[in-house]
């Protein structure tokens, strides 16, 4: 009985997709200087609006459009507060989080008389590619949303690095004064990215409700919005970093669900954990000038990591008869993220300088 089989990989993708899409949108907004900690509320708005539209027309395409509209609505509120009224973005985000929950739950209770269920998005096999062993099943037998997410991520990479728009966006988040002086509308760029983030979060929310399972429940986004924000921060505002972060989160989450059902942690899990620790150890052993030494490992925190990996290797050879509490597994992605950040000495990739700082050109 393998823990890491095809079904596992598929579930990693399913868990990752909505978080990734939302994080991708949020990344754009944050690179332009606007952080929306109320992303959870925006996703909920998308989830509910998608569901509400489905209840009316029972058409998934329109449902997703409804979800996107819901996301844009939430994002527009953020835009008004952060860009127009220039209030503190963190409080604005908190408010949007509360509102997103309250409004959707309220409308759901009072305006949708009977809870409905719909079919989730069908899985589409891509002819040819889906026949490939393992990869075919994992990557090319997915639903439309997952394909769309992949396309969006690739286009984001392109837009950020290969277009004038990307340059303008980075400038607006980094030195808005310079962008303004060059005639780039700081307001315009920020609005565009905030609304795009709303589109992404709305679609991701709609996937959580009508795409993945076909129902809506109060608060059903269940923290995915916060996870998306954590991914952007942990990814150090780089698309690659965000991808990695979401992959780590999704993988540990999927493992966690797997392992809960088993009484004993199988050997392969220990092996994978040990393998994951190796790059961290190497990293810690690397001096600033690039040389590797064993002596660099002799500080207490580093010794701890080394000792930990030794234990893991031992466990991989002789699995101990333990099952760990679910909480430990649930906390694992975040602990891993912290260890990775500490090991990476992440100071080089910095936050966009103008993140959360409203742009005021002169006395208004």
């Amino acid at each position, binding site marked *: 009985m393998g823990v890491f089989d095809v079904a596992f990989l598929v579930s990693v993708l399913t868990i990752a997709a909505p978080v990734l899409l939302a994080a991708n949108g949020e990344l754009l907004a944050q690179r332009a200087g606007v952080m929306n900690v109320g992303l959870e509320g925006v996703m909920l708005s998308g989830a509910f609006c998608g569901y509400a539209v489905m209840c009316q027309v029972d058409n998934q395409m329109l449902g997703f459009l409804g979800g996107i509209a819901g996301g844009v609505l939430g994002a527009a509120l953020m835009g008004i507060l952060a860009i127009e009224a220039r209030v503190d973005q*963190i409080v604005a985000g908190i408010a949007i989080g509360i509102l997103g929950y309250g409004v959707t739950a309220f409308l759901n209770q009072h305006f949708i008389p009977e809870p409905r269920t719909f079919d989730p998005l069908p899985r589409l096999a891509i002819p040819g590619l889906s026949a490939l062993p393992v990869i075919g099943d994992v990557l090319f037998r997915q639903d439309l949303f997952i394909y769309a997410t992949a396309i969006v991520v690739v286009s984001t990479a392109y837009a950020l690095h290969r277009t004038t728009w990307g340059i303008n966006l980075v400038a607006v988040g980094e030195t808005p004064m310079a962008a303004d002086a060059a005639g780039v509308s700081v307001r315009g760029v920020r609005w565009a990215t905030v609304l795009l983030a709303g589109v992404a979060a709305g679609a991701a929310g709609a996937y959580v409700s009508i795409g993945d399972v076909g129902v809506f429940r109060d608060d059903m986004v269940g923290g995915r919005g916060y996870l998306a924000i954590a991914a952007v921060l942990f990814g150090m505002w780089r698309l690659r970093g965000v991808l990695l972060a979401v992959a780590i989160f999704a993988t540990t989450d999927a493992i966690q669900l797997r392992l809960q059902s088993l009484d004993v942690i199988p050997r392969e899990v220990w092996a994978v954990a040990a393998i994951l620790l190796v790059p961290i150890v190497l990293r810690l052993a690397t001096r600033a000038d690039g040389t590797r030494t064993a002596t660099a490992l002799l500080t207490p925190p580093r010794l701890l990591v080394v000792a930990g990996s030794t234990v893991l290797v031992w466990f991989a050879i002789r699995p101990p008869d333990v099952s760990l509490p679910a909480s430990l597994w649930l906390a694992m992605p975040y602990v891993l993220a912290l260890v990775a950040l500490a090991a990476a000495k992440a100071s080089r990739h*910095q936050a966009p300088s103008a993140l*959360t700082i409203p742009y005021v050109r002169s006395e208004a």
Partner: protein
Amino acid sequence: MTLLSTATILGLAQRLLTQVAVAAVTLLIAALLLLTIGVSPLDAADAFWAGTFGSSTNAGTTLTQAVPLFLVALGWIVTEKAGRIQVGFPGQVVIGGCAAAAVGLHAESLPGPFAVLLCAVAGIAGGAMWAGIVAWLWASRGVLEIVSSLLLNLVAVQVLAWLVRGPLQGSLDKQPQSANFAPSTSWPAFPQIPGMTLSYDVLLAPVLAVGLVWVLSRTTFGFTVRASGGNVTAARWQGMDPVRAGASAIVASGAFAGLAGAALLFAGAAPWLSEGFEASVGFNGIAVALLARNSPIGAMVTAVVFSSLNVGSTSLQSLLDVPSTLTSVLQGAVIVLVLIAAAVAMRRRRTPPPVPEPSTLEASPRPATAGTGV
């Protein structure tokens, strides 16, 4: 001279007007929402008042519940002054509460005041320790405090989930709750108030507010913290240690949050540890501080406003069957409106901010050129 004073009066009047306008709009929205579900707004106002300040018992509850919010707000203010963006309050409240609970469950034999103090100290230590991780990661590993604190929040939730199912589990039917704390460990309540709902910990609020203002404005530590917050590089070049100042500020803010955790458990009505005891105090505390424009004194007022929203919503539910979701809507709407009002009020008086300072989100506590690293 006269011109100036007229301007000041006009400004004041304008601010007052916007406040009134906000209140009016919020009430209007509330009234409309209530009407859609068939509740008379007047009844609702009545129930809200009754639940929050209508009786001294309820007023006590409202004030007591404002204390943790206020403490977290103070924590935010400290880090804000130091130019750090630490959002780990939910986690620090949780861990502070857990530490306090762990001590409190074993402190029944101690005399009352001593046990109360010990639990408070344990809470402070727990919160400070949890924030200490953030501070360490920032100061010596260059990890952005906003990132690590956010991740640690998510870890703290799991620590609590494990504790109440494992080591601290203590109810007859194995619910994820601890046993009740001994009465001797709880903050005493004002005996004058029926129901003993007002704990003495409210006295912490004015004392700590004034204390914090004093520390920030009148001590070299506060001065160093503010200078570091204003311009890290300049502080360093002027012979201060902005890394230490920033790290101390983060730890201090964690201590405030930890104390809030202890207050939630030992000064509230529910003397036991359970999942979710944090009750969003961590994030709402930030809002409390920001709505008070980061003034410790102002935060006392905004904390009471927030807590009355919360207490009042419970009473709206139980008296008029107003659904809890509606009260969330109202809470969100109030924050949004207050934010907009503050922005409008500031618009007039706003001059451009001083020459751009280096970003407050700057990751590396030392400039990249520094060779004196660890």
